[in-house]
């Protein structure tokens, strides 16, 4: 588990955790949602700019949380920018399954590049209590594009 901990807290995660990208309010967002983790009280807001073609033009977030949730949100904002809503929902589904251990690996598909990024988060599967931290931002993003303004990981 020492190794597991080290794998979870990889450099790239620590880096995103400390210096989250797109950590700001998005002035011209047209989708936004709040995510709560009722177990720890952490919360974040995801802002998205989605155009008529359901393409995500821009993504950002604000909030507080642990290194895992900050890093995950940070990477998520990078990944979803420039993708369509259905693409990111597909990715969310796969990412979620990866974190809970439902699947072992990402399918080899068009998202290979993003998948490399996401794979670093998958160390969380050794820590079931922390899966929620890794997926909160994704849940919130999903709520935002689905038109729900609040969500929580249960």
């Amino acid at each position, binding site marked *: 588990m020492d190794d597991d901990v080290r794998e979870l807290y990889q450099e790239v995660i620590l880096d995103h955790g400390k210096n989250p990208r797109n950590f700001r309010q998005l002035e011209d967002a047209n989708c936004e949602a709040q995510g709560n983790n*009722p177990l720890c009280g952490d919360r974040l807001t995801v802002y998205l700019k989605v155009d008529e073609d359901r393409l995500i033009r821009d993504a950002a977030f604000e909030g507080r949380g642990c290194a895992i949730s900050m890093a995950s949100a940070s990477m998520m904002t990078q990944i979803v920018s420039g993708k369509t809503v259905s693409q990111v929902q597909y990715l969310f589904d796969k990412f979620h399954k990866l974190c809970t251990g439902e699947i072992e690996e990402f399918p080899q598909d068009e998202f290979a590049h993003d998948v490399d990024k996401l794979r670093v988060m998958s160390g969380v599967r050794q820590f079931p*209590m922390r899966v929620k931290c890794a997926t909160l931002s994704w849940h919130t993003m999903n709520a935002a594009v689905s038109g729900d303004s609040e969500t929580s990981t249960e």
Partner: protein
Amino acid sequence: MDATPSNIDLQRSNYDVDAIRADFPILASEINGYPLAFLDSGASAQKPECVLRCMDDVYRRSYANVHRGAYTLSQAATDYYEGARKTVARYINARSDDEIVFTHNVTAAINLVAHSYGRRFLQRGDEVIISQMEHHANIVPWQLLRDEIGIELKVAPIDEAGNLLLDQLAEMFGYKTKLVSLTHVSNVLGTIVPIKKVIDLAHERDVPVLIDGAQGIVHTRVDVQDLDAEFYAFTGHKLYGPSGIGVLYGKKDLLNTMPPYEGGGDMIERVTFEKTTYRDAPARFEAGTPPIVEAAGLAAAIDYVDGIGVENISAHEQELLAYATERLNEVDGITIYGEAQHKAGIISFTLDKVHPHDIGTIIDSRGVSVRAGHHCAQPLMDWLGIAATTRASFGMYNNKNDVDALVEGLNYVKEIFS
């Protein structure tokens, strides 16, 4: 001999009651020098070794508070607790684990519905239909609600044999009928109520249904999707599980429209002094530290029951019931209450000129445990015109020797009272 596992009849003849008995440590007890003939499983069942081991093990290896800790032991305890929810959901075929709320007994589960569902959806003048043969647990919560908001209680009648009168029940529905709350199996008469029919009746009229499954789940296979009841409640200790735990199954969408019951930790989303928001079910209804180890024990009990097969248990109990009915009828002065078409392994009776309490005390001196009293069903007792009965109720571990001991005990009673 064909051992096709799906053939229940063959299985029944394979039903190894001695092996089962060996799994229940307490059954080796002697009472007053006589072997224990435990015939009060309807009040609370005994526990198999695997349930005791499981609980002891959790405390020795995997105990901590659940949900809250980011550490191994807390995760292990949470796995037990949430795993138990999955076991229950699977066993009763719920659509989702989120439909399983743990309470501390079935009484609490019914009170939860009366309080939370009742006060959200019922109003003065609205009617709740129960039956003549309810346990106090399915009467008093509605009376408390009545005292508070002025609902009406309607009582569906039964016939002499203890069958629910479906036709008359059907006529009781009116535009003010807002809930049917019904026992699955009568804890006094043994009647197995055709709840599926009642649920269909109610649903034709858009009326939701709560089933008090305290006795029902012990003797029958329960499939909540097939039944389609809005709520199904039961209690762990009668299902060979530990004391201190009950279950409320509720349809998810419905649960999520209901306000919280108790307030406290773990059921909240966000608390400020001004405003608090609540989590979805089941968390919303599980305030504070839940019965962690009890849930693990209940899951072990369900696995044990399922391993044997509730159909096989029930077939075995039917044999005992038939045997007991026959043997008791040989006893002079006996009256058996409850002769419904479908009956579970519960048999209530009186003996001329001897009060059930005296019977209880005297046969206990011969090792026989039965319950004597009103069985928390006073309105039924009043309807029967008696104060109390003696009740023998069977569990998976009872055998004909237990029935014989009961009959011999009654003969001893008669000897004393002759």
